[in-house]
């Protein structure tokens, strides 16, 4: 038997998500007394995965898979799982991971738990802890099928270097015709995505209008952060929908989340609560956000933020 992970690349390079699932998969394989197999598609240097614990690296090189075809990749995953006798399959929670995992579950008739935050609570029965109720609670879920699928929550486990055997093996297969074709990709260039960012700077209605977003963007630029906003801000058209975070928007699980002029409504907080450290800047000392924040400043964004930007710039030059 084995544990199988899908290590996704972006333009040939492994993303942090990929290294995280490999790190997690290795620990899980050790606990099960078995080895970790990672499979990867069109990676430039698959051998990198050995440093994070991959014992076997199954490489697929195929131009037809250069754009993400969920069903084709799920089919490949199912084939490899059968060949490797994999009993646990781990996928990340990126947009692509969330597309892939339920298809694999359907193909293998396997139980699937998404948003898993740590190693299984028990192996026999196989019970995992997962986020539920939009981060307001955790659920313990038993997976009782022979093959188990785990969707690992973002930034929940971390990346660890562990030596794996790193034995490489090429895999090729006849691709199925899937019926969904990619026409074009619109990648926002030069901007860090909320999904990938270590730091997210978010603005709410307290910023009064789109003309003031330079403050948010400048702060994000010094911190190498992604920009986000509350729901009304995107509903009003001040910012694009893709920046709307919260229970009904994008989930945020960054290391640092800075909320400026956001009241901290339950629906907003639910979606960003998985962030490790939360900083709130708000004129209202009674704003609900202070109850869930780690650090708070009661103050006017138009005074506090420019000073913060300036001082952070100084801090960065001193510390680089």
């Amino acid at each position, binding site marked *: 038997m084995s544990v199988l992970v899908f290590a996704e690349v972006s333009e040939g390079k492994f993303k942090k998500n990929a290294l995280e699932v490999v790190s997690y998969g290795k620990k899980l394989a050790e606990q099960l007394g078995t080895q970790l197999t990672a499979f990867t598609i069109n990676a430039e240097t698959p051998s990198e995965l050995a440093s994070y614990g991959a014992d076997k690296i199954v490489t697929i090189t195929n131009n037809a898979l250069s754009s993400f075809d969920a069903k084709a990749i799920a089919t490949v995953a199912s084939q490899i799982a059968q060949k490797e006798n994999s009993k646990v399959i781990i996928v990340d929670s990126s947009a692509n991971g969330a597309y892939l995992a339920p*298809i694999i579950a359907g193909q293998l008739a396997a139980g699937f738990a998404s948003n898993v935050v740590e190693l299984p609570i028990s192996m026999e029965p196989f019970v995992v802890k997962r986020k539920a*109720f*939009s981060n307001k609670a955790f659920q313990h879920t038993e997976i009782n099928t022979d093959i188990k699928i785990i969707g690992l929550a973002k930034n929940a486990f971390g990346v660890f270097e562990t030596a794996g055997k790193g034995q490489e093996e090429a895999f090729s297969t006849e691709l199925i015709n899937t019926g969904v074709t990619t026409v074009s990709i619109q990648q926002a260039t030069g901007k860090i995505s909320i999904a990938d960012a270590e730091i997210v700077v978010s603005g709410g209605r307290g910023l009064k209008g789109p003309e003031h977003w330079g403050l948010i963007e400048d702060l994000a630029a010094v911190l190498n952060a992604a920009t986000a906003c509350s729901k009304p801000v995107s509903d009003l058209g001040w910012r694009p929908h893709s920046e709307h975070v919260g229970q009904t928007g994008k989930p945020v699980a960054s290391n640092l989340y800075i909320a400026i002029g956001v009241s901290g409504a339950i629906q907003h907080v639910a979606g960003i609560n998985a962030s490790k450290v939360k900083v709130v800047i708000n004129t209202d000392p009674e704003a609900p956000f202070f109850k869930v924040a780690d650090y708070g400043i009661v103050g006017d964004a138009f005074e506090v933020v420019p000073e913060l930007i300036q001082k952070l710039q100084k801090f960065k030059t001193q510390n680089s």
Partner: protein
Amino acid sequence: MKILVCISHVPDTTSKINFTADNAAFDTNGVQYIINPYDEFVLAKAMHLKEGLGASITVINVGTAETEPSLRKAMAIGADDAIRINAAPKDGFFVAQQIAEIARTNTYDLIFAGRESIDYNGGMVPGVLATLLDYNFINACVGLEIENTTATAQREIDGGSETLQANFPLVIAGQKGLTEEKDLRIPNMRGIMMARKKTLAILEPIETGDKTGSKGFEKPQENAACKMVAADNIDGLIDLLHNEAKVI
């Protein structure tokens, strides 16, 4: 065009989430239920297609009798009829199996679902459903045009979006963007009256094995008190973020 819209019935977004004393089950006391917000976006899109191209819309829920107000509301918004599979769902796989069974006999061109339900956040039903039916599938859909039997759709990806093309039959898991907030539908009096006369069929579930089971719940740890920093002490904040929190 025949459209099926999957509706999940979930606690209102402002609900306090509590569990029974032994943490075994969700405590429904005092909880208001709503149509899953993602499903509102897809239902509005289905209405839009119906008005533009002509379509029949059936809404479906796998749930006990308590979910009927959500199905009635969907019919008041404009769905033509409703199906309730009379079972407390065990997990997303179970729900997908039940809906697949209905789709096999009724054959829909387009099945809409939400990207995820805001209660159990499985993100599972639409993908499993499409796979069981061998329908094409587009996840996290934020834009959709239909021409004849071909869909051109935008899917959200990390840091952007991509445009995909797929033929019917097709499962779409949607979210905001597919419909704008201002285009969401609110039932009017006439719709509510008409919904009373529409058919809500109650069907019994098919037998399936359990793939997962809930073993209980826990609440996140209480946050330690927020450290307040004076507005004129920005250096203090930077120091805390650097030396204490170690995030910059």
